[in-house]
Each structure stands twice: as C-alpha cells, then as structure tokens.
C-alpha cells in the first residue's frame, strides 16, 4: 500500500513561510531587478541596464558617503573590540558588584537609538552642552563638535602649531589631486563624524562586553592554574591563553560590529544637520545617502536599490573574508 503524502509539516511552516517569502525573499529579488530600472515612487520605469551602477561610480557624493562609512567602521570596530575585551576581563575578575557594573554597561544597548541620539546631540551642543562644560572646566577652549567639519588630524596638528591645510595644498598641487579629495583622505573623519563614532561605540559596548564575558566564562580554569604553576604572569596568560581561547568570540564580535556599523542610520538622521549629513557632508553615511536618494527629493528608488546592493556586496565580501580568516586561525 502506498503511503499517503503528508501535508502536515508544510502546514506548520506555512504561516512563517508566507510572511518570509512575501516580505523578505520577494523584496530581495525585487531589489536586484529594480536596480536595473529607473523606478520612482510614482511607478515602474524603463530598463536601463547598469546605468545606476555607472552613475554611482561617477557620483562624488557616493564616494564621500563611502569614505565616511569606512571611517566610522575603521574607528568603531577596533576600539569597541578592545574596550569590551578589557571590560569583560575586569568584570570576570571580580565578584562583588559584578551584576551592577554589567547592567550599567548594558543599559545603552536596550535603549532606543532615537532617544540616545537626542541626548548626545544636546551633550555636544556648543552653548548648552555637557561636552563643552567639561572642556572649559579643565581649561580648554570650547569646540564646535557636531558643527565642526575639519578633520581630526587637522585639528590635532593645528593645535600643535602645524599648518595642515597648507601642507595638503602643497601636496595636492604636487601630485595633481584635488585639494578637497586629498583633505578628506588625509584629514581623517571630521570632528562631527568623530562624535558619531563615540556615540556608536558607547551604544554597542555593553553588548560586546556581555558576549566577551560569556566567552571568558567558557575558558576552563585549569589552563590558568597550569600557567600559574609554570610561573606565567597575568599579561602573558592573557596573550597565551585568553586571547587564543577567545578568538571565536572575537570573530563573532568583529563580524557583528562591522555589519551593524556599516548600517548606521538613526544617529546620523537625528544628530547631524540641518541638513542631515552635515557639516559639509562629512557625516553622510551610505545608508543615509541611499535613504535620501530613494525617499528624498529625487525619489530615485532604483538608484537607492543599487546603492543598497553595493553595500550588501561589501558586507558579504567582508563576512566571507573574515570566515576564511577564522578557518585559518582555528586549530
């Protein structure tokens, strides 16, 4: 007797499958298609091939947004990683007040980016902000913070009395590159973007610390006991045992922080400007750029889709690269 086909399992996955297919799979496929057209909010347009991608390549705003996003990632990821590992180590070493500290570090993680951005925007306010309040208390001049478009390298060197912009001027005429491009590359992130970096690190630190703490607690105590007997110091133990044993967690933290930082949006939308992304476009990141292209004045949904896909390509490449590296490092 032939067994009857069992529909049961399909019925169980059906509700989730419908939602995921309609609102995830189809939009993902659609985004590839849309990126080859010139759609706007009013409706479908005509097929234009790779034109959106070519346009992106020649779009100075796109490259600046990319550079800003890279600055953000390059600063946020390593600093957050090191700080959270240090905190987790200290937390792992204490008994009393451990859960209090853990909670304090973790609160920014559960609070909304919107409220946090509003608070930090006021902290960095030139006249009524806390940052300048502290700065002037310890005898420095107040700074422009979110209104400051100069790069951090420029600000730092100028304070040492070095004429950075003059140097860039000479160099740009020497190598035949435009002053602005060279300034953006050598000047580093603007002070405004640096404020965003601080907030982004602050927001994600608690999560990374908790992940590291969980990783540290999984390292068997016997390794440290053996090292103690062999007379290895604490710092040597950290690099020879902890750092090696924790590397899967490090890869996870590295990957998650990178992915999240590439997609920063709310802090930019709420803290910078007007216009958002200012001053002088130095805080415009890639997700805000595509949001602006898709839902701003030009309403170019196709161009926005193409930008989103390039972002996805970058994230995917980095993730695969990190996975390969992880395989090499693991024994």
């Amino acid at each position: 007797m032939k067994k009857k086909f069992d529909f049961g399992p399909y019925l169980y996955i059906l509700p989730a499958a419908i939602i995921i297919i309609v609102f995830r799979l189809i939009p993902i496929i659609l985004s590839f298609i849309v990126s080859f057209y010139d759609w706007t909010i009013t409706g479908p347009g005509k097929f234009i091939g790779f034109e959106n991608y070519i346009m992106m390549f020649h779009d100075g705003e796109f490259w600046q947004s990319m550079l800003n996003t890279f600055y953000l990632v390059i600063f946020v990821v390593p600093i957050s990683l090191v700080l959270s590992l240090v905190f987790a180590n200290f937390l792992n070493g204490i008994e009393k007040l451990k859960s209090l500290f853990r909670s304090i570090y973790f609160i920014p993680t559960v609070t909304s980016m919107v409220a946090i951005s509003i608070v930090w925007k006021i902290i960095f306010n030139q006249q009524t902000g806390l940052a300048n309040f502290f700065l002037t208390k310890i005898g420095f001049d107040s700074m422009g913070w979110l209104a400051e478009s100069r790069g951090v390298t420029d600000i730092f060197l100028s304070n040492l009395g070095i004429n950075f912009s003059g140097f860039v001027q000479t160099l740009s005429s020497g190598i035949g590159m435009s002053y602005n491009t060279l300034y953006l590359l050598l000047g580093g992130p603007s002070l405004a973007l640096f404020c965003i970096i601080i907030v982004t690190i602050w927001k994600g630190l608690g999560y990374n610390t908790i992940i590291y703490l969980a990783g540290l607690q999984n390292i068997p105590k016997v390794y440290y006991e053996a090292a103690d007997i062999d007379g290895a110091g604490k710092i040597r133990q950290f690099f020879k045992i902890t750092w090696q044993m924790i590397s899967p967690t490090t890869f996870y933290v590295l990957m998650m922080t990178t992915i999240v930082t590439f997609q920063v949006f709310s802090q930019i939308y709420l803290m910078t400007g007007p216009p958002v992304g200012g001053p002088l476009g130095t805080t415009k990141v890639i997700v805000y750029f595509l949001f602006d292209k898709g839902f701003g004045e030009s309403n170019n949904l196709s161009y926005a889709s193409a930008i989103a896909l390039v972002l996805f390509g970058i994230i995917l490449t980095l993730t695969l690269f990190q996975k390969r590296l992880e395989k090499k490092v693991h024994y």
Partner: protein
Amino acid sequence: MKKSISYIILSVCGLFMIIPFIWMITTSVKSQLEVNKGNVGFLPIEQYSTYEEDGIIYRITPVKVDGDSTYIHIFDENMNRIRSYEKVATSNIVEKKEFKLHFENYKEAFTKVPFKRYFINTLFVSFSVVFGVLITGSLAAYAFATMRFKGRDFIFYLFISMMMVPQPVYLIPSYVLLNHMGWIDTYNALIIPWIANIFTIFLLRQQFKTIPDELFDAARIDGCGRFRTLWTLVLPLSKSVIVTAAIFGFIGSWNSFMWPLIMTDSPGLRVLQVGLSYFSQEASAQTSLLMAASTFSILPLVILFLFAQKQIIASFASSGLKG
C-alpha cells in the same frame, strides 16, 4: 590590590557609560531659562536676584548700576514684568540660589505632541509583533526540528541565508510592494511584515532539537497528535527560550525606527520613536523638554530591563554563542 584597580577602572568607565543618562534626567527637571543662561551642570540649582519690598520678595533683573543704587526690572511670581527701571539701593538686592525641580516639564512635553497616542501605537504594534512571531516561529521551528519532509533543509537554509541580508536592501522594494498593496500608512505595514522572524525560528529550532526522542515516543504512545505534542510537551519545556525570543522581539519592535519612519506618514500612526524624532525637530531649542521626552520614552524598556535583568543579559549573551 589587583582587585581595587579593577574596581577603579570599571567605576570610571561605568561613569562614562551612565553620565549621559544622569545628565538627561537632571536637565529634564531644569527650567529652560536656566539652561539657556548657560547653567548646564548637573545640579538643578537656579540663581537669581531678589528685592524685598513691604515684606514681599520679588524676582528682579539688574539693569544698570548707578553709584549706591541700581536700576532694576521687577517681576511677579509668574515672571511677568510688573515694573521697569526702578531705582533701588544696591544693598537691598539679594542674590539667591535655589534648588528647584521642574517636574512640569514632563507634563508639558507629554502633552505638547500626542505622546499618549504614540505610546498606545507602539504598545499595540510591539505586542502584535511578539505574539505573531511566537506563533509562526514555534509552528515552523517545530516542523524543522521534529518532522521529516521533502525540501526541509533547503527551506531552512534559504531562510537562514536571508538573515544575512541587511535591511536597506529589502527596505526599498518593501516600500514598493506595500505601496502596491495599499498598506503604506496603515498598521498592517508596521505589523504584518514582522510577524515572522527567521532568528526566532532558528532559536526555537535549536531548543526543540534538544528535547529527547523518548519524550516524543512516549507522547505518541499516549495517543498525542502533533499539535497536542507541541502544545503540551514541547512548549512547556522551552519556556526560557520562548521568553528570550519574546524579549528580543519586544525590544526590537519597540526601538525600530527606520521602517516606521518610511512606511507611515500620518501623525496618528506615529510610533514612539518616530514621534520622538519629529518632536526633536519641532522643539529643537527646548532642551529640557527634549530631555524629559527622552526620559519617559526610554523608561518602559529600562524598567523592563531592571526587572528581567538576568534573563535579558543571558539572552543577549546566548545570541553570541551560537557559533
């Protein structure tokens, strides 16, 4: 000795983590006048000059000093100017410092824009999403974990691979799709796309797989059908993971911003985060009101966090150990 270094470093950094919140609260109970005067420290202390006349103390502002006397403006208790350019003896003017909390800022911020409506919208959306995610998630995870069927692994890994795709990629086509369905600017747009969550399915599947086969066999021998087994055996054994999934769902939904910002337009549909964002543009100069609004909008989650602290931290920690 070594311990005390740990405590010092943890405290200093802990202070840096918590100071924005402390300052948010202290600024939220200051008068805007004080903030604008540049009194931006932590203590809500007000400084002002007073002048006493016939046993009544008036608030005044000095205008010009002229020898032993000073020209002043005199105000009543509502800070309305009642007399201008009065000439009084300087020695009669007293500088005062007063510790004063302006809790009325909270009421003003809450009623200035319909925050009540925003809270109700957010609660409605968040609870609907969590409810939906748990139902669709447990049904699907149950099938993936305990049943054999054609295409099971393919479908499962297809779902998992979609988890990698960042939101900006599907945001724009989702807008086009929802627009086509006529769902833009409705609750549907905020709820329906989110009532199934791949991560929840993954989380629950991992948990369901740990339940020993013997228990399923026993249930089958007792004549339990598939659904009854899920309801009476699997779910009760998975309480803590279900709570974890609910917490993730709730926090994610409560804090989501970009999606509702794009998918809704009318003020009546604003969720808390979107409402707060508009409020921050409208009242950008009123720092103390903004701080009050920020405070009450993060309060529900902070309270939830303080109550379920252990569970929440354990949930987030476990999300990193899936490897």
